[in-house]
Structures are given as C-alpha cells and as structure tokens.
C-alpha cells in the first residue's frame, strides 16, 4: 500500500481504451514526494495518455490516479491547485511578452494582479529570462520559450510537475541548460514526472520507468538499470550498405548474438571492444563492405530499454 504522506503520485490498475484500442493496460506506479521520475517509451506506448489522465485532462477507463492523496477524478479542484503541467507543444502566446504570458497563467491560477506581477518577476529571474521579459515570445528561442513554459508550472502552491517530452526541438546546448534547470527545481523540493523518448534526458532523473505496450515493464535508478541489464560496451558501426551477409558478419562479434539495426548501420553489445573493433573492421573489409564509422561507448538507458523491450526508443 502506498503512503499518502510520502507518495506524490500513485497510479493503480490504470486502463485507458480509445475505440476498442487499449492504450494503457494496467499501469501501477508509486512516486515519492521530491522524486524526479522519468518515463521512457516509444511513441504510441501510452506515455502521453498516462500524463493526460494524471493531470486530469482525460478520464481513465478504469483504475485511479492520486496526487498527494487526492483522486484526480473525484477531487479535480484540489489536484489542479498542486500540479503544474507542461504539454509537449509550445502553448505560450507568441503575441504576448514573456512577462505577460506568465502574468496570464498566474491569474488563471487565481492570483491577484499584484501577486501575479510579483510572481512573474520572480519566476523570470529564476529562469534566467528577466532580461527578455519585455520581448514578445515570438522573438524567443526554443530553449527560452520552453523555460518560460516550465515557469508556468512553478506557480506558488504547485508541488508536482508533469512534463511531456519537454526537450523536443531544443538544440543540445539548450537541452542541457533546460535539464539543469529542471534538476534545480527538483532539488528545491518539487516532484518531477517527465515523459521522454530520449535516454540522455532520463539520465538526470532519480528513477526511470520503461513503458511498452501500455504497461511499465521495468523501473529503477538509471545506474542500477544499466548495471542490472548486464550490458557490456556498445559498438556502433556505420556501413555503406546493409544486407544479410553484412549483418551476419557483425552479429558474430555480438556478446549475445543479437544485432540492432540503426539508421546508418548496426548496434551490438560486446565485452572487449578495443580488441573486437579492429577484427570487425577487417571482417567487413573481407566481404567488401568497409565500415564508414565504428565506435565503442558505455551502454545508455536507450540500450537498456532496447534490451528490455527489443524495440529501439528512437527509430
């Protein structure tokens, strides 16, 4: 049983169907207060459906979700007072300035005009947007706009943040800054529930869940998941062309005899990559398919996800 005093988000036996199609098929979750939880899964695995039920924007077919002990269906007003939701799309108004947008959402949240102005100023400062507060959002970069939108989920009283694919469209530098900001917000006490299909984003979380086919199939701390996966190093090979013969040559170097096809080549798991890579290059040369690029790296959460589900996180 979950503890209402320490659980921020509790999901029990959650099902959701659309026109006979089961999108969620019995999801159970218990996320503690102050946790940073990242939910990873392919597009269509049910992540966004789960977040939309948890934020009260879509009703469940069966099962329940509680936020700080309040049922999202039976006590929506109590839940709406303590959650901040950042949907995937850029919902801020491009015609308004950053400050005007924040004041707008603060007032929707029920703050008075003076409170909203004060809170907007503080949040703009906190998000590093104070210098651009008077600019219209249409002139903001993608990273600035996303930080502004996260600020709308940090209004006074909000204790649980829900973020749906928040780094989509951000360049690597903006993504790093943004994830750092999220980490700070979490360290200040907010519970963060983030949905993503990018393994690197999930690395900042304290706990990660893998979703596949409408269920949570694996959970744990990022490092623990990698350790438990038993995965060795990862070798990625780019080849000028693909085919059965090439795949067969590469598969021979895989520690588990399995091979994952990527956009430009193949990915395999290997125990001693320094020793295996020169041999692999020679073997590929032998079949007339020289490797265009070959590199070894430590396994990522995306690799662990692939091992758990046999599906690549990103096509």
């Amino acid at each position, binding site marked *: 049983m979950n503890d209402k005093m320490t659980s921020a988000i509790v999901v029990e036996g959650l099902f959701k169907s659309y026109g006979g199609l089961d999108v969620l098929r019995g999801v159970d979750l218990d996320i503690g207060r102050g946790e940073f939880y990242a939910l990873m899964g392919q597009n269509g695995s049910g992540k966004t459906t789960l977040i*939309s039920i948890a*934020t*009260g*924007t*879509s*009703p469940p077919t069966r099962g329940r979700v509680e936020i700080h002990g309040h049922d999202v269906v039976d006590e929506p*007003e109590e839940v*709406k*007072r303590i*959650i*901040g*939701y*950042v*949907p*995937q*799309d*850029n*919902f801020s*108004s491009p*015609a*308004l300035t950053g400050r*005007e947008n924040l004041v*707008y*959402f603060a*007032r*929707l*949240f*029920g703050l*008075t*005009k003076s409170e909203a102005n004060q809170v907007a100023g503080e949040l703009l400062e906190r998000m590093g947007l104070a210098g651009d507060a008077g600019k*219209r959002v249409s002139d903001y970069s993608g990273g600035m706009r996303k930080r502004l939108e996260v600020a*709308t989920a940090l209004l006074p009283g909000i204790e649980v943040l*829900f973020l749906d694919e928040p780094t989509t469209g951000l360049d690597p530098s903006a993504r790093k800054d943004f994830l750092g900001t999220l980490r700070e917000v979490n360290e200040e006490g907010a519970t963060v529930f983030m949905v993503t299909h990018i393994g690197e984003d999930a690395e900042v979380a304290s706990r990660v869940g893998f979703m596949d086919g409408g269920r949570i199939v694996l959970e744990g701390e990022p490092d623990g998941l990698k350790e438990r996966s038993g995965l060795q190093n990862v070798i990625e090979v780019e080849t000028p062309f693909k085919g059965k013969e090439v795949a067969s040559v590469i598969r021979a170097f895989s520690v588990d005899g399995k091979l994952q096809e990527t956009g430009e080549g193949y990915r395999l798991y290997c125990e001693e990559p320094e020793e295996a890579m020169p041999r692999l290059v020679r073997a590929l040369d032998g079949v007339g398919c020289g490797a265009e690029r070959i590199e070894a790296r430590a396994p990522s959460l995306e690799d662990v996800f692939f091992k758990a589900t046999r599906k690549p996180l990103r096509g």
Partner: protein
Amino acid sequence: MNLLATVVGKSLKEFTRERMVIFWTYAVPLFFLAVLPMMYGGAPAGVVSGLKGGLSLTMVTFLVMTAGQSNLPGSIAMDTERGLYLKMASMPVSPWKESLGRIIATWIFSLVGAALMLSAGLLYGAVFNGSLTDILAAAGFSFLTAVASVGVGLIIASLVKGESAATHTGVAMTLLTYFLGGMALPYTSLPEVLRVFARLHPITSANASMIFLLEGESYIGYNPLGAVQVCTTVASSLLVLAVGVALYSHLCWRR
C-alpha cells in the same frame, strides 16, 4: 472577475497586435465604405447621404461578423493547435468563464471598430435619422449581430480544425452572409429563396432592422420590425450563441 478580465486582456492584446487581424477587420470595411459610394453617382444628395448611412451601418455589421466569425475562431484554433487548452484543462479554470472572456474581448474589439466605422461614415457624409429611442433600438440590434457572430464563430472553432481553416471558414461565412443576405444587394432584387434567408438569418435581419430604424424602409425594402420578425431575430441570435458556447465548452476543452 479575475479570470474574465485576464482572458479579455489576453485576447484583446492578441487581436490588436496582429496586423492581418487589424487589416481584415478594420481596414477592409473602411475601404468598402470609401469606394462603394462612388457607384451612387447621379442620385440626389439626400438619397446619397441616406445610402451612405445605410452602408456605414452595413459595414459595422460586416466588421462585427469578421471579428466574431473569423478572428474569434482563428484565435481559438491557434490556441487549440498549440495545446493551450490542455494546459488550461489542468488548471483551475472554468471553461464557461473562459469562453465568456473571449466573447467579451471580441465584442470590445468590434465596438471599437464600430465607433471607427460610424465616425468615418459621418465624416464621409452619412446621415442617420431617428429618435433617441430608434438609436438605442438600433444599438440593440447591432448587439444582436455581435451575439450571433460570436455564436457562429464558436461553432466554427469547435468544428473546424486548424487556425487557417477556421479563419477562412469564418471569412467565407461572412462573405456568403453579406452577398446572399441582402446586405450587398438590395433586398428587393433578391430571389424569393434568398429573401427568406435574409429574414431568417439573425445577422442580416438585425442589420436590416438597424437600417430601417435609422434610414427608413425605402433603404431596406421590407419592414423587419414586425413582432414575429423581431422575436425570430432575437431568438435565433441567442440560440446560435447558446449552441456555440455549448459546443466550444465540450469540444475545444478536451477531456
């Protein structure tokens, strides 16, 4: 009040900061008002001033239709596309109050345009006749055009996906109403089927009532102030608004 004022303020800022909205809503009717009277050449001065008065009132209605039937659904569709309703649905926001805020903002935007249009008409030689009671009654009918226009706008916003599609559907509805409902062409020149349309359509019948009150029957071609006609105009305007708000609250606010 907090929520209403917030939504009104946001919508008005979005309307007034978008150049194309200002152009299509304010500038196009002003252009018609300036150009169309050139076709009145040869008519006696007294008639021309009345025609200009009627045209000014019709352009006010055209402007009100554009704001309600095109600008409003366009802005709602844009907010839908960018996920604002998902965000608002997770917040303590009442869909009814939010829709009322959007409606009031559209009416304020229309009111400013109407004042601009009537001022331009007066400067251009338009003459309005009628007692204070007639003027107030005409203002009431103009309000009914605004009521029906936002109703149609909310229906469009609820049923048509995408900002561009919603805006263009609204423009098409406005032009169809203008050309087929006895606003662009004299009522007497319309075929019978369009006369029925002009009498039943809440916006065209309210527009005819305004012109009847301030310019006289000869500028309209029929008396739209019979009890049945007035009741039909009022009831259909309110009905369209009610349907629009109900659809908007159910379809735009995803659950």
